[in-house]
């Protein structure tokens, strides 16, 4: 009996590494600390009412952002561990197994649990406000999306201390990820956590597409929408087509592992290449899913801080729509060297290069928005300016990678690693930082400290080039990705050391941002105007943070840059403020069910990870019951009474 418990425990808990024990201890300590603080300050009720059950898009957005920043920390620590291991040849800091787990979770977390939720944070915080809506089209579904993402992310993070992390790479190619080569529960954690959060992502895509198409304020034509909202629409189109592909691919692989099917095995007619096709049919459009919203952010930031209308609006819209289509003709470039044949390779080489055209057009349009403007170098603008050279170089190396025969040399090398980090950090992360600084006052009602932000900016930027420029060179030296160690004498040592130094500089940059957030909570300058940047779009017409119903009266839109035009009107001599006529506002009710349902998803996922079918069944029954309960609920909305709105608006100085 005792023996079997011991065997189980050694299989269940990850052991044998001081770092793991450290993580165990810190997880327990942090959990105890959180429980203590919540109990001591009697915040349980508050947590449940205000956050866990909320369907308010702004609060959901904030939760997405906080979770994403935490995941950025986790993924960043992974990166630093890897770079430490690679700093010198023949290092013995990490074992192969541990290293493999770390690069797998680094990739998975950064793409799916950092970039995606941070993007959804912007969807939630900005889109309804920009289009003059009071909430998203399906607020309840929105909460479901968030909690599915959250518990999916938790499931993957749990694998670090329980069961073992996935170690087949974030692309998880079979047959390496099949049972024959990967017994452990780690791969199951990967498949189930992404599947669970993927349901949420798909729902968000549908939700925001409907929101943008159906809930714009009266008068706002499609071609009047702010470019950020346009970028979200383009993103949603890609999400809706791409995410089902990922879900199916992962489900088939999971059926292989759980039920012994042979979709992607090497036996009985299975074909691993089919998985690789499906994965990248989602995976490459995914790159545009995360970068398009960043493009939207740059458009807003450039136009606000150059104090000028965006240059070439129609071109910008057209290029985003083109990207959303061409992104589906790029997946094969991930395996030019998998024997597709010269004809197929040529087609996908040219279609991949072609996506550089609309992307390049956007860069020129941003530049010419600055031309003859008045540029204020605030933090969001600094990040946008830093983005341009970084992304231009990243885009150029992207075109170089698309040249199929040359790709025979770059593929799977550090050249590739440098390229995609350059577009993902230079394009996506810089953009999301710009967006966070830009909309932070709208989210929290205060402006972040500029000085700390600049320290962070320089550490991030210099660190970036120090980290990734050597990696291009390493690629030319024949260094391949995912090596946990390398010998002396290949000439790789000093460049790797430089690269590691750069990575730590970016880490310091992140610490400054952490300090900036803490500083902001305590000392941040309050934004009383609601419009700290002299903005152009509707969200700046609201107080910071906006009341839960957003707009006391829905504005009438007369063209692009709606808030800017209104401000111009107000400046006209003889402008008379129209009397505010307030009516009761129809709002959705909070619900605990999205949270509870996601807990059941988590239980089912955890059970299936360990092949405990009974636990999977319990979770599935829970999910079924919560779904059923919702369908019998009729009391889902209410009206905010006029006097409450008047009180709120008066307190905000809006009446």
């Amino acid at each position, binding site marked *: 009996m005792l023996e079997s418990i011991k065997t189980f425990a050694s299989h269940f808990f990850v052991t044998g590494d001081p770092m793991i024990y450290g993580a165990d201890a810190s997880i327990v300590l942090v959990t105890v600390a959180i429980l203590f603080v919540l109990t001591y300050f009697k915040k349980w009720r508050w947590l449940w009412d205000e956050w866990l059950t909320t369907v308010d898009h702004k609060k959901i957005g904030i939760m997405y952002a906080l979770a994403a920043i935490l995941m950025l920390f986790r993924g960043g620590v992974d990166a630093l561990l890897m770079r430490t291991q690679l700093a010198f040849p023949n290092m013995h800091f990490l074992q192969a*197994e541990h290293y493999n787990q770390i690069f797998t979770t680094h990739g998975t977390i950064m793409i799916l649990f950092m970039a995606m939720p941070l993007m959804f944070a912007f969807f939630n915080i900005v889109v309804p406000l920009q289009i003059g809506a009071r909430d998203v089209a399906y607020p309840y579904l929105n909460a479901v999306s968030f909690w599915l993402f959250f518990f999916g992310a938790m499931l993957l993070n749990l694998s670090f201390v329980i069961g073992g992390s996935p170690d087949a*790479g974030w692309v998880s*190619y079979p*047959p390496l990820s099949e049972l024959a*080569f*990967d017994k452990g529960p780690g791969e199951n954690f990967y498949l189930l956590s992404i599947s669970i959060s993927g349901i949420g992502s798909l729902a968000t895509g549908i939700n925001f597409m409907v929101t943008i198409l159906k809930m714009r304020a009266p008068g706002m034509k499609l071609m009047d929408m702010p470019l950020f909202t346009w970028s979200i629409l383009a993103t949603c189109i890609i999400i809706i087509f791409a995410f089902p592909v990922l879900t199916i691919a992962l489900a088939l692989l999971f059926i292989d592992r759980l039920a012994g099917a042979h979709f992607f095995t*090497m036996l009985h*007619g299975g*074909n691993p*290449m089919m998985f690789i096709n499906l994965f990248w049919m989602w995976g490459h459009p995914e790159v545009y899913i995360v970068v398009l919203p960043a493009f939207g952010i740059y458009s807003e930031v450039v136009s606000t801080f150059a*104090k000028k*209308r965006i240059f070439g609006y129609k*071109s910008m819209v057209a290029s985003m729509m083109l990207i959303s289509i061409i992104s589906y003709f790029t997946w094969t470039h991930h395996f030019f*060297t*998998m*024997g597709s*044949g*010269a004809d197929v390779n*040529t087609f996908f*080489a040219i279609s991949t*290069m*072609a996506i550089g*055209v609309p992307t*390049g*057009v956007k860069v020129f349009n941003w*530049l*010419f928005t*600055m*031309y*003859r*403007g*008045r*540029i204020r*170098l605030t933090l969001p603008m600094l990040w946008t300016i830093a983005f341009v*050279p970084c992304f231009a*170089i990243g885009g150029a190396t992207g075109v*170089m990678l*698309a*040249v*199929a025969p040359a790709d*025979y*040399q770059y*593929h799977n*090398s550090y050249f590739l690693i440098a390229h995609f980090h350059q577009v993902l950090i230079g394009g996506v992360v810089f953009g999301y930082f710009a967006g966070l600084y830009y909309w932070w006052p709208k989210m929290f009602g205060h402006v972040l400290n500029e000085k700390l932000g600049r320290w962070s900016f320089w550490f991030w930027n*210099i660190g970036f*080039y*120090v980290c990734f420029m*050597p990696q291009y*060179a390493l690629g*030319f*030296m*024949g260094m391949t990705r995912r*090596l*946990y*160690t*390398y010998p002396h004498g290949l000439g*790789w040592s*000093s*460049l790797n050391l*430089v690269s590691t130094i750069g990575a730590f500089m970016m880490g310091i940059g992140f610490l400054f941002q952490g300090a900036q957030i803490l500083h902001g909570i305590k000392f941040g300058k309050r934004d009383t105007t609601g419009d700290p940047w002299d903005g152009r779009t509707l969200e700046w017409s609201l107080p910071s943070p906006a009341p839960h119903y957003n707009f006391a009266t829905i504005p009438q839109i007369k063209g692009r840059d709606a808030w800017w035009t209104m401000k111009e009107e107000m400046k006209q001599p003889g402008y008379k403020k129209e009397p505010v006529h307030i009516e009761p506002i129809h709002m959705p009710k909070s619900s605990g069910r999205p949270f509870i349902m996601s807990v059941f998803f988590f239980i089912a996922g955890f059970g299936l990870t360990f092949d405990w079918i009974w636990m999977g069944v319990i979770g599935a029954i829970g999910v079924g019951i919560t779904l059923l309960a919702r369908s019998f609920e009729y009391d889902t909305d209410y009206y905010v009474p006029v006097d409450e709105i008047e009180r709120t608006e008066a307190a905000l100085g809006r009446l």
Partner: protein
Amino acid sequence: MKLRTLLSRMKWFFTVALATVMLTGCNGQFVVLDPKGPVGKQELDLIILSTVLTLIVIIPVLIMLWIFVAKYRDKPGNKAPYKPEWEDNKTLEIIWWGIPIVIIGILGVYTAKTTFALTKPPVQNVAPITIQVTSLDWKWLFQYPGQKIATVNYVEIPAGVPVNFVLTSDAPVNSFWVPQLGGQEYTMPGMALTLWLQADKPGSYLGMGANFTGEGFAHMRFHVIAKPQSDFNAWVNHVKQTAPALTKAGYQNLTQPSVTDQMSFSSYPDGLFEATVNKNGGIYMPMQQGNMKKEDTPADNNAMKNMKMGQ
């Protein structure tokens, strides 16, 4: 922060970054940029062409960014024109939609040409040699159907002769990469893909597995040793006379996960490569993909001509 400090900081950082990369790069070997065979040379030509063509876009972008940010700063007394409503210019837009399209057109043409060219032997007047490559956990097995010998973790080839590498895997998907000779190709279980390479001069060239295959992946390096034809023949004879035979049991041993040193074998079981492809799924593939029979890969060097495998 003043613009001047900003600029000087950026200058400082670019100089330092560039200098670091350059200095540290000196002791390294940029194998991709130093090809030793016609395939690698063609790929390098494309690398250079694509770099030059993309610079046509990048350089103006960097210059414009620099000038615009410096000139249109929002500071008191800035006399530069300010046109907040200016938002459209057809000529400009046509220029920056047009130029990238032209660039990609040019690059596309050369890409297509080279892509098709590389599916054929790099030189036509020399009879090629075939080498069958199997990636295993975590080692490389090379079989010479013409010479009937086999090696592990090193491969010798005659210099100046096109080599038709036929690739498969009896383990997870890997990728066979010899940067100085030119490019890589995946090794896929159940498939046999081809990669033409050629070394112009004798020498030893580093090769490696480029696609992650688990714990021992980092140790999957091998050397390609190019020799004059006569030395190559002598080496084959030497292996035939001195090395042990690779038996079926011996092959089974090799497929077990482990990291090994170099090995040589004077012979190998008949049809081993074809059996490996077939058992891993080749039997389910239509004729042109796999389903290999022994007679499909005869010892003669035109082996793959009729098969159109992969490429």
